[in-house]
Every structure is written in C-alpha cells, then in structure tokens.
C-alpha cells in the first residue's frame, strides 16, 4: 500500500516553559485520510504539542510544514484559516445559541451587514447532514446531548476548508453509543481525505479508530508506530517507561498486620464516573490503585470519601452499612482524603500554613469550639518538623510554598485527624524526588502503625513498592485485584492494564479478598 505523503510535518519541536522542558525534539507527521493517535501519560506534552501546532504557543525549536510550505501560526485563528481546526476536550460552544448559530458563529452569511437567517439555517443543515447528523438547527444547542454537541463542534471545525482536524479527548464524556456515532463521523471525514489527530486516554478506542500513533513521554518522542504493529501491552510500556530506581528501595514490606476488615464496598458505583466495584480494605493495609489517567482511579477514591454520591451499592465500615453523603460524614468514620488537585480541591491558598493544617480538625469541631491556640501551635509544630515542611514558618500563606511542601501541608491536615483510612490521590505528582521518597516512607510507617491507606498513583513502581494489594482500573472499571507478592511486577501490572484484566485467562491471579495475602 503506497503511503500518502504527509500533509503536515512537525520536526524537532522544542518548547521550554519556566522551569520545565515541555517538549524536546518531537516529530509528528499527519497523513491525509488517516487517523493518527497522539499518546502519552498526563504531562507527556500532548497538549503542549497541539498548542504549538495551532499557534497558541510559539515553538522554541523545530519547524512545522503544511502541504510542503513552512508555517508558523500566530494564533488558532490563523491556523484555522490555513486549514488546521481543533475541537477541544471541553466543548467550547455557546449552549444557549441555536445549533445553526453555533456552526456558523463568526461566519454568518450576511448581506448589507444583516445576517441572512434563512441562508444560515440551510448552510448549517447541509454541513450537519454531510456528517449524517439529523438535528433541528433552530433548536438551542443545550437541547442536545454532549455527543451531538461534540459533533456540532466538529461540523464547525471542518466547515472551513479543513485539511487537518485535531480532536483533543473528544470521547472523555461520551457513552459507548455516542462514541460509535463519533467514530462514524470520523471515518467519514477520513474518507474525505482529512488528516485527523486523535487524543484519547481510552486504549480500546485508539485501537478501534487510529491507523497510526505517535507516543510521547516526558516531553520526548518515543516513536511513531502503526497501530496494527504495536500491541496494547507494548504501548502501555512505552507510555509509562521504566522509571529507574532513583529512589532508595524500601525494605521488603512486612505483610500487613491485618486485624480486621475496615471498609467494604459492595457494588458501589456512580453512573458516568465509575462502574460498580467491590473492594475490601483491611486495617493496616496499603491498597494501591493502578491504571492510566482517566481510568477511574480518582472517581473510585472520591466515592469512598463521600466527595461524590454513589448511585449504587453499599459501603460498610466495621461491617456496618454507612451512608457517606458528605465528606463530613466520611470524616466521622475517620476516613481522610488527600485530593489529587491540591490547588483546586485541597488547599486554601490565602490561608496560612497553620490554618490550612488545622482546617479539617476545626471543621470537625465546628466553629463554636476553636482549636486552642496552644494546641494548634503544638500540632502544627510537630508536623512541620516531622514532614520537614519548608519554610518552617507556620504563618506564611500556603500559596507561597513549593508544590512538594504544599502537598505535605495537605497531608499534615489529614494526619492530625488520626484517620483509620487515609486516601491518597496522586500524593507524589509534580513534586521533587526527595519529597517523594519522604512521602512514600511516611505511608509505609503509617500503615505499619495500623492505618489503612488507599494509594492512588500513576506510577506503577511506586504503587508496587508500597501496596499490599493492587486494584487495577481500566476504562472506569475495576478490572482486577492482585496481591502484591514476588510475582507481581510492573510488567504484570502493565499487561493487566493493557489486556483488560479478567480477559487474560493465563493470569489466574484473582484475589477476591478471602483471607490474608499469600
């Protein structure tokens, strides 16, 4: 099969942000009539690459050629005029306007400055019918599902003589039927000779639709592969990479001194977030959750803390069913949750380190019973010292601290509550190696002291190092639960993630939580 010449070529792209090298020598080639997937873990540089391509960021190094001519766009509009259209993850349409207005916004057919509504409706209907969409173009966009909205966004993007269409995580909020509909539209566009760049965290979808893929890791190019020539397992391996053991190894973890079942989830799930799962956490046990980004790790953790309501299933603490309707309720059962996004869901930036640390304790006591100043000083002093929070001044606003220290402040907030179950969602993301090792050591110590820990991390090495058992998630499902013994390695984990767990007959490693670990 003769390969068509690439319509778009990016070569040696480099981009430096203050303190971070976001892209380094990345190549990307898109061919007409092909769907090309851009793969990589969170922070691998996918978004930055797209932004460089569409002119949001200027590249520091490298060249972009479109149909043989070297180009450098000053902004998305310019890129769009040249035929590169983008549909972003969040549908950026105006839900209160009609479908027709959304499709043609900014390009309304006019005569003497007046919009010709009739012509506009006809044009919009024609564009949508080309995508096999039958919608009433006069209805407000908000009347339609997210999938339709997504396709309206695509219709708008491809109207302008598009040659390249970029779809940034278009499927993240669609259900299976809607995804199928979107894929039909994508195939149609592909047949019209468009080059489509597809970004998704769902491996199955990538394998279903993409002809070729480019893999990035840590801002570097791993390679370009034909989808048919790369197994899912190899893909996961290439995305995650082998993190070299730059951290000292923790000694072999002693088996969990499990005295009893602490928390039991039976068929707990939340529609649209995570499918019903069952999970048992025992006292003193570290349960790791592994899976790619968007696999439902955070969603699972949030249900156990009452941050979101479960729509099905029952949750038991100490064998008694509980309703965790709010975080406050979960905290009454001594469950604590360190959220993944410490800026949005964790710290109060303007409050001081001291105030941030005592916040949860104060919330439990209510405002009428302040934590005595002396007790505050003592608690804060102890944890500032124990976690080596720097600067060790509890009265500076927490926003002035570095990421790792902010993480420690958040951790301290929950530790002073002396929880029985501590849920840590990506506690080591974005912090330096030293702080990372400290937090890992802390988790080990806490569990040795009898605290149960649910440890969510994208880094498999880390999950393996700390956990007594590992829950594996994929596509918003808890697909497997593996005891962490000598046989469990990152390879096994990767294979489980890639293959979809239970689908592997050979693995035979199903631990259904019946008694202790082997």
């Amino acid at each position: 099969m003769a390969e068509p010449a690439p319509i778009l070529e990016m070569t040696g792209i480099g981009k430096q942000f203050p303190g971070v090298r976001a892209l380094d020598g990345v190549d990307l080639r898109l061919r007409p009539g092909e769907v090309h997937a851009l793969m990589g873990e969170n922070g691998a540089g996918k978004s930055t690459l797209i932004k460089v391509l569409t002119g949001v960021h200027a590249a520091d190094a490298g060249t972009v050629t479109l149909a043989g001519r070297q180009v450098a766009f000053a902004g998305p509009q310019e890129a769009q005029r040249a035929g590169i259209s983008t549909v972003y993850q969040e549908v950026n349409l105006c839900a209160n306007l009609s479908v027709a207005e959304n499709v043609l916004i900014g390009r309304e057919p006019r005569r003497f400055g007046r919009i010709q509504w009739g012509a506009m409706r006809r044009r919009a209907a024609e564009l949508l019918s080309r995508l096999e969409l039958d919608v009433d173009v006069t209805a407000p966009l908000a009347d339609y599902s997210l999938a339709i909205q997504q396709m309206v966004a695509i219709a708008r993007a491809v109207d302008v003589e598009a040659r390249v269409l970029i779809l940034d995580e278009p499927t993240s909020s669609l259900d299976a039927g809607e995804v199928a509909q979107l894929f039909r539209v994508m195939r149609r566009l592909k047949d019209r000779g468009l080059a489509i760049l597809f970004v998704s965290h769902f491996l199955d979808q990538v394998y279903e639709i993409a002809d070729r893929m480019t893999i990035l890791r840590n801002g570097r190019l791993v390679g370009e592969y034909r989808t048919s020539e790369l197994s899912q397992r190899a893909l996961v391996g290439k995305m995650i990479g082998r993190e070299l053991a730059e951290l000292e190894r923790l000694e072999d973890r002693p088996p969990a001194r499990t005295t009893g079942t602490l928390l039991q989830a039976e068929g707990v799930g939340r529609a649209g977030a995570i499918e019903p799962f069952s999970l048992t956490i025992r006292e003193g046990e570290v349960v790791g959750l592994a899976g790619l980004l968007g696999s439902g790790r955070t969603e699972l953790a949030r249900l156990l803390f009452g941050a979101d309501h479960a729509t099905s299933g029952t949750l038991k603490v100490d064998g008694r069913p509980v309703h965790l309707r709010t975080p406050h309720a979960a905290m009454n059962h001594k469950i604590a949750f360190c959220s993944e996004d410490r800026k949005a869901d964790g710290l109060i930036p303007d409050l001081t380190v001291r105030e941030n640390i005592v916040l949860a304790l104060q919330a439990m006591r209510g405002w009428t019973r302040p934590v005595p100043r002396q007790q505050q000083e003592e608690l804060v002093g102890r944890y500032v010292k124990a976690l080596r929070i720097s600067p060790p001044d509890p009265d500076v606003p927490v926003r002035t601290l570095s990421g790792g220290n902010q993480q420690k402040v958040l951790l301290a907030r929950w530790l002073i509550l002396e929880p029985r179950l501590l849920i840590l969602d990506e506690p080591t993301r974005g912090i330096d190696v030293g702080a990372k090792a400290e937090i890992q050591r802390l988790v080990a110590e806490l569990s040795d002291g009898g605290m149960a820990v649910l440890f969510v991390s994208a880094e498999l090495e880390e999950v393996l190092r700390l956990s007594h058992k590992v829950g594996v998630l994929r596509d918003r499902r808890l697909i497997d639960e593996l005891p962490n013994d000598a046989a469990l390695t990152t390879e096994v984990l990767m294979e489980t993630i890639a293959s979809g767990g239970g689908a592997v007959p050979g693995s035979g490693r199903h631990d259904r939580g019946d008694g202790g670990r082997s």
Partner: protein
Amino acid sequence: MTRRLLWPLLVLALLLALNVAVNPAFLAVQIKDGHLYGSLVDILRFGAPLILVSLGMTLVIATGGIDLSVGSVVAISGALACLQISQDAGVFTAVAVALALSLALGVWNGFLIAGVGIQPIIATLILMVAGRGLAQLVTDGQIITVNSPSYKLIGGGYLLAVPFSVLLVLAVLAVTAFLTRRLALGMLIESVGGNAEASRLAGIRSRGIVVTVYAFAALCAGIAGLMISSNVSSADGNNAGLWIELDAILAVVIGGTSLAGGRFSLGGTVLGALIIQTLTTTVYSIGVPPETTLLFKALVVAAVCLIQSPAFRAKVFRRRGRPAAEPAPEKKAEVPA
C-alpha cells in the same frame, strides 16, 4: 495586617486634614450639657449605622457572596419597631420583635443561597425589592412618628457623655471580633470564601456558615434600622436605609476585603465606613456645591480604590519613579491630585 490598613488610614487622614485646612477648629471636641460635641463625634454618630451594616457585609463578602437586601432590612426593622411603639408596646418588646424579624429575613436569604442554590446577588435582590414593599406595608405607606425618650436613646441618646449609638457599634464590633477571631468562625468563613470546593472536602459544612453570615448581616442591618429611626423618631419605609447597601459594599472594599471572598478585615471595614462618612461631612464643610456632591464623592472613591490597587501603584510609581527618584516630594503631591 497593618500594611493592608495603611492606605485607608492615609486616605482618612487626608480627608481630615482637608477639613482642618478649611476649618481649623474641625478637630476640637468639647463637652456641652454633659455630652461630647464636635465634628469628629458627629462623624462617629452619623456613621454608626453604616459601620454596623458594613460589618455584616464584610462577613458576607468574605464568603464570596453579597447582600443587597440590608437597606430594606434597615427600613423594615425601623418601621416595625416604630409601629409597635406607636401601638403602646414596650420599647424592649418593640426592639426584640424588630430584631427577631431581621434575623428571620437573614435566615431566609441564607436559605435561598445555601439551600436552594440561588446566586447571592439575585437571592438578596429579591428581598431588596420586596423588603421595601414590606416596610411600606408595615407603615401603611405613612411615616410613623413616635415619641418615646427611651427609644430615642438608641440612635440619638448619650450614655456617660458618649453617643449611645457609638457604644452600640463598639459592642457589635467586639462581638464580631470575638466570634470570628477568638472562635473559629472567621477562619471557616475565609476558607469557604477562598476555595469552596476545597473547604467542602475538608469537611466544612458551608451551608451552616453561609446561613450564619447572612443572618448576622441582617441582624446588623436591623440594629442599624433601629438607630436610624430612633435618631429621627420616625420610620420612613421608603427612604430609611436607601442605598446603604452600596455604601456598605464600598466600605468593605475600601477596607481591603476582596469582593471575590477570602481574607477579610474588620478594622479595614470600620475605616472604610468612616472614610465614607467623613467624605459626606467634608462635602458639607468645605462647601462643595450640592449639585456636584455625588460627582465629588465618586471621584474621591475612585481615587481611593486606585491608590489601593498594588497594580495601579506599581504602574504609576514605576513610570514616574525613575525620573522622580530624587525629588521625593513630587510623589506625595500626586496623591491628592
């Protein structure tokens, strides 16, 4: 903290200095008939209702909300108290009933916002508009005049030579400071205003906090309503407390509390309210023509807000900072201009 109060303090000092320049006896305080007398005392006395309303508004704004209904609550509270007194109820009963209704109105606001989830500006707009009507209903569209010396004490009387209203403000200020700074209410308010989702995940039940601050704001407005009606011995459902919500919001902002919520400063708010009241006094004392009064006020307020903005200061002082590095007085000359 002190640095944040620096600019409002400076503005207040400037306004006072301006008055002294026009009238050298401006700062004089004397005792007549066993009462304190003088322009400064008047500023405090007439500014008392605004300070009260602003204190309540501070907590509301710190949670990231706003309360437009306080002016109406002022009118309702005064009207109800005067109605009761005119119907021969005891002053104590009248005050209690008026404050209880104010509190209930505040809880209503809080319920709409925290319970139903209406945006604060809309939720309180309902009571802002409806409340005027309610006040008119209470007064039957008339101005109720009362003649009760003990009711007169609240807004127009003196205790130990000091205006009673000033003592009342000090008491409310002390209670507010106690609730927010000695108890933990202040920290939780700042937390909710600073990051509502993070606060929820830290286990803070923000509904209770939100209802509390709106109830508190309405209570403050209720007391202010008593003061205003007591001072003139009458209740005017139409004009009592008219636009006081806007002055209060302004006082809070001048005091350095961000409209986006988060950190708040009670001292700053008191200063802000005093600046607004002093400005009103200044307009009369330096003889600004009545038809330009509002424009004059607007200009001063705009200047105050600009001076407080670090971004604005950086811009202005950087631009003229380099050439004007040696002749420092030039910088000072620019402030009143």
